[in-house]
C-alpha cells in the first residue's frame, strides 16, 4: 500500500484525549439536526410539478388560500434530514429489541417488496370488484390461515390494530347479548395484570370494568373469576399467554365458568405468537380474540403503527361481525359492504373503519405466514418460548424472578434484586441502552414491582442472547456492587441523554412556532 509517507497507526497518546466537544455540536456519525422549519429556504421546493393549466378557479366563491406556512426544502435537504433522523433511532434491524409484549421480531423485506406490487399497493378501495379479485382472494386466504390456526369459524378482518380489535370483539359480544335480550349484562371482568387497552376498550364500549386480582403465582384462578361472575357479566377479557409471560393453566375452566354464567370469553391475543401452531384458541373456549398482525405475523411496527388486528370469532359471535367482509360468490369473491347485502342470519354490528381493513398489512402477514408454513410457524413459537426460557435460566440467579416455573415467550423479572442499590428499573434500562440494546418493557405488568418484561422473540440467535445475558449479568453485578452512579448517569452514548418528561408535561410544547421577530 502506498501511504505516501502518512502515518498509518494511531497515536495512542493523543487518541486517549477526553471529550473536547465540536464546533458543530455533531459527534461524527451523529448529527445535530434542526427541525424542517429551521431549514426553511423560502422559494425552494423538493418537487417539480407540471404547469397549472390557466383556468378560472371554481371554489364556489371561496377565496383561494395564501400562505400555509410550510418550509421550503430541496430534495437533497429532505433526504439528508430524514437520514440523520433515522440515525437517532434503534430498530430491530439495529439491535436486539426485547420490548416485552410488543414482539419485536425480524421484519422480512420480502413482505415489503410484495406489499408494494402495483397489484396490491396501487388499487383503489372503491374499484369495481371485478378488478380486485386477487386482492379479495388474498384477504380470503389470510382469513383461512387465521381461522385454521386458531380453530375458530370466523374472522373479522377490518380492525386497524390490537385495541381496535378489542373494540370489535366487545362490540360483537354486546350485539350478541342484545340479540339474546340480555343488554343488562354490562360488567366486564379484566384481570389487574391486563394491558391498559383492555379496561380502556371496555369503557369505550360502554361497559363497566371489574378487576380480578392476580394470584400469587401470576395467574388468574378460576375461583377468583367465579367469585366475580353474575347475571350482569358480559364477558371476561383474559390475555393468554398472560402479561406475566405465563400460560393460564386454568384457562379452559375459566372459559367454562364464564360460559356457564352466560358470559363470553374475549381473549387478548397480543401474546398469541407464543402458541401459534401449538394451541388453537378455539380449544380453550375462546369466543373472540384479536391477532396483532404486527406482532405475531411480523408486519413492521413502523415507529408506532400501522398495525392490524383481525378478530377471530366463535359461532356464537360470528353473525355479528362488522362490515365489510369477503364472501365466495358464484362468480368469484365478493365484498359485503352494506346491511342490505348480508346473507341469511348475519347481523353485522356496524362498521369500524373506512374501506376494508389494512390491506398492506394483510399482504405482509400472508407472505410471512406462507414463508413459515404450518411447520415453520410452530417452530417459530417454539423457538420464541425456548429463547425466553433460556434468558430466564441464565439470569435468574442474579435477577429476581416473581414467578417460578417455565415462562412462555417472555421472561419477567421484578426489581427486588435492586433493593437498596439505589438503582431503579428505569436506571437499569438506561444502562442497557449504553450496552447497545433496546430496553425491555419496564414497569409493566403492574402486578409486579418494577417489572422487567423481556421478550427476545425467535429471531434472535443464541450468540445474541449470550451477549445480552453477559451484559445483563454485568449490569446486575455492577448494581449490587454499589455502583449506582453508573446507572444514574446512563445513557451516556445516545444522541440525547435522559429527557425531562415532567417539564414536557407541565408546559406542553406540541409544535414548532416561528421565533418572535
Amino acid at each position, binding site marked *: 500500500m502506498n501511504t505516501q509517507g502518512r502515518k498509518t497507526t494511531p497515536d495512542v497518546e493523543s487518541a486517549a484525549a477526553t471529550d473536547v466537544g465540536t464546533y458543530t455540536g455533531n459527534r461524527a456519525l451523529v448529527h445535530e439536526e434542526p427541525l424542517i422549519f429551521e431549514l426553511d429556504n423560502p422559494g425552494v421546493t423538493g418537487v417539480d410539478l407540471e404547469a397549472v393549466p390557466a383556468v378560472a378557479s371554481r371554489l364556489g366563491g371561496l377565496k383561494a388560500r395564501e400562505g400555509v406556512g410550510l418550509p421550503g426544502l430541496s*430534495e437533497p435537504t429532505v433526504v439528508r434530514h430524514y437520514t440523520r433522523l433515522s440515525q437517532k433511532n434503534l430498530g430491530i434491524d439495529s439491535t436486539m429489541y426485547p420490548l416485552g409484549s410488543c414482539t419485536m421480531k425480524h*421484519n422480512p423485506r420480502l413482505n415489503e417488496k410484495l406489499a408494494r406490487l402495483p397489484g396490491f399497493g396501487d388499487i*383503489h*378501495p372503491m374499484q369495481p370488484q371485478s378488478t380486485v379479485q386477487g386482492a379479495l382472494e388474498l384477504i380470503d386466504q389470510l382469513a383461512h390461515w387465521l381461522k385454521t390456526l386458531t380453530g375458530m369459524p370466523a374472522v373479522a378482518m377490518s380492525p386497524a390494530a390490537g385495541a381496535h380489535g378489542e373494540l370489535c370483539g366487545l362490540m360483537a359480544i354486546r350485539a350478541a347479548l342484545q340479540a339474546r335480550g340480555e343488554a343488562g349484562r354490562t360488567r366486564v371482568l379484566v384481570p389487574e395484570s391486563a394491558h391498559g387497552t383492555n*379496561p*380502556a376498550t371496555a369503557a369505550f364500549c360502554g361497559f363497566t*370494568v371489574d378487576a380480578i386480582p392476580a394470584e400469587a403465582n401470576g395467574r388468574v384462578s378460576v375461583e377468583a373469576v367465579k367469585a366475580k361472575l353474575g347475571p350482569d357479566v358480559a364477558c371476561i377479557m383474559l390475555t393468554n399467554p398472560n402479561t406475566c409471560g405465563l400460560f393460564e393453566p386454568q384457562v379452559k375452566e375459566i372459559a367454562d365458568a364464564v360460559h356457564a354464567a352466560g358470559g363470553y370469553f374475549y381473549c387478548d391475543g397480543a401474546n398469541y405468537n407464543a402458541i401459534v401452531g401449538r394451541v388453537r384458541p378455539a380449544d380453550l373456549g375462546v369466543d373472540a380474540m384479536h391477532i396483532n398482525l404486527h406482532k405475531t405475523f411480523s408486519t413492521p411496527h413502523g415507529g408506532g403503527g400501522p398495525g392490524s388486528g383481525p378478530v377471530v370469532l366463535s359461532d356464537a359471535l360470528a353473525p355479528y361481525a362488522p362490515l365489510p367482509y369477503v364472501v365466495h360468490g358464484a362468480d368469484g369473491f365478493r365484498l359485503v359492504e352494506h346491511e342490505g347485502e348480508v346473507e341469511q342470519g348475519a347481523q353485522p354490528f356496524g362498521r369500524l373503519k*373506512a374501506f376494508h381493513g389494512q390491506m398492506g398489512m394483510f399482504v405482509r402477514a400472508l407472505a410471512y405466514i406462507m414463508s413459515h408454513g404450518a411447520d415453520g410457524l410452530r417452530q417459530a413459537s417454539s423457538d420464541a418460548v425456548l429463547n425466553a426460557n433460556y434468558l430466564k435460566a441464565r439470569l435468574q440467579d442474579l435477577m429476581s424472578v416473581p414467578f417460578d416455573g417455565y415462562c412462555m415467550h417472555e421472561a419477567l423479572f421484578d426489581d427486588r434484586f435492586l433493593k437498596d442499590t439505589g438503582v431503579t428499573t428505569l436506571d437499569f434500562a438506561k444502562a442497557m441502552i449504553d450496552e447497545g440494546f433496546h430496553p425491555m418493557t419496564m414497569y409493566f405488568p403492574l402486578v409486579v414491582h418494577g417489572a422487567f418484561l423481556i421478550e427476545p422473540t*425467535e429471531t434472535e440467535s443464541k450468540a445474541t442472547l449470550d451477549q445480552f445475558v453477559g451484559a445483563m449479568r454485568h449490569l446486575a453485578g455492577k448494581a449490587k456492587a454499589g455502583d449506582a452512579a453508573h446507572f444514574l448517569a446512563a445513557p451516556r452514548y445516545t*444522541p440525547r441523554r435522559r429527557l425531562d418528561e415532567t417539564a414536557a408535561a407541565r408546559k406542553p410544547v406540541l409544535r414548532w412556532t416561528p421565533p418572535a421577530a
Partner: protein
Amino acid sequence: MRYLPLTEADRQEMLAAIGAPSVDALFGDVPAAAHLTQPIAGLAPHQGELQVERALSRLAARNVPAGSCPSFLGAGAYRHHVPASVDQLLTRGEFLTSYTPYQPEVTQGTLQYLFEFQTQVALITGMDVANASMYDGATACAEAVLMANRVTRRNRAVLSGGLHPHYRDVTATTTGVLGVDLVTLPADPKGIEDLAAAIDDKTSCVVVQNPTLFGHVADLTPLAEACHAKGALLVVVVTEVVSLGMMPSPGSMGADIVVAEGQSIGNGLNFGGPYLGLFATRDKFVRQMPGRLCGETVDADGRRGFVLTLSTREQHIRREKATSNICTNSGLCALAFTMHLSLLGELGFTGLARLNHAKAVQLADKLAAAGVTVLNQGFFNEFTVQVKGDAAALVDTLAAELILAGVPISRLHPGQVALADLLLVAVTETTTEDDMDALVQALGGKQ
C-alpha cells in the same frame, strides 16, 4: 427456515441450560387436551422466498392497478404521485423496525418527525395543535364526536348528509354503544341542507365534511358561528388533504376540531389501508384529545429533545378513564406524510392543490361540453355527474374496457333510487389529457 437462527444443536444446548427435557416440556401449563403435538393439518409447509413471491405476484396480477389505466376514483382515497425518495427513506430499518418511542433516548428520530408532523398538520388545518395520528379519517371522526361530548358535556351530535357514509357509519357504530344521540341529515347530492337549524342546546357538535362527499365546497364560517352561539363545537372533516393547499383552512373558518384522512400525502392507495387519521384542535382542548402527543423538552445536558407527553390521557396510564383506547396508531404512514409534505413545502403544497383543482375544472368543462351534467357549482378536485341509467352498471361496463370511471354514489349510498345515476369523479395531478378524453368519450358516448 430462513428467519430462524437457532440450530438443533443450539436448541439442545439451551434446553440443557434451562434444565428442561424438551421444548414440549416448556408448554407444561397448556392443558394436555389442547396441546397439539403436530403441525396443524391442511396448511401448507414453509416455502422459499421465490415461491412466496411467485404465489403472491400471481394474486397481484389479478388486480387492475389504478395507475395502469385512466382512473377517476376518489371518495376518500386518492391516487397522487408520491416522490420516490419517500418510500426509499421510509424503508430505512431504523424507522421501519422501531416501535412507539417509549425510550426517548433511542427514538429521537421518531419523536422529532412526530413533532414536525404535528406542526405540519396544525399548519395545514389552521389549528393550534395536532396529535401523532389516528388509524384513519373515519375513526378520527368518531373520536372527534366523543371528544366534543367530553368538552361540552353534551351528548348529541349532528352529522351532515355530505359526510362520507363510511365516516358516518364508523361514528354511529363507535358512539352508538355509548348512547350518543346522533342526528344524521339526509344526503342531498346538490349539497343543500340546513345544519344550523339542527343545532339545539343539547348539541355537542356539528360534523361537516368539506369538500363534501359529492365534492361541494362551502364557507363554514356561518356554521361555526351558529355552533358557537349554541355552545356547540364545529368538527370539520377533510377526506382530501391536498385541498388544504388551496381551500381556506378549517381553522380560519372557525373549526374547533379538524379530522382528516391523510392518505393523499405520502401514502399509496393500498386498497384502503393502512391510512392515517389526522386530528387537530385548539390549545384549550388539548387535554381532551385522544391519541399520542409528542412534546419538546430538554435532556440532562440542557439540549432540546422530544418525548411522548400528556400521557395521563392515555390507556396505559388511565386505563378505563382514558380519553380513548387507541395505542398503536399510524406511525409509518405519518412518516410518509411528513416526508412528502416536507418535499412539497409551501410552493409544492399550494401548487399541487392548484394543479389538482385546475385539472378538475378542465375535466368538468370537457364533460359539460359533451353534454354530461355536472352537479357542482364549486368543487376542489372531485365532483358529481349525472349519467344516463345506473351509474354502477356503467362503471362495471367501463371497467371491462379498462377505464375506472369513478365511484358510483350507490356504492356508498345504496338503495336510494334518486342517487342511482350519480357518479363521483376525482381528478389529481396524475390525470392526463388522454385520461380525460377517454372518460369524456366514454360518458359522452354512453349518454
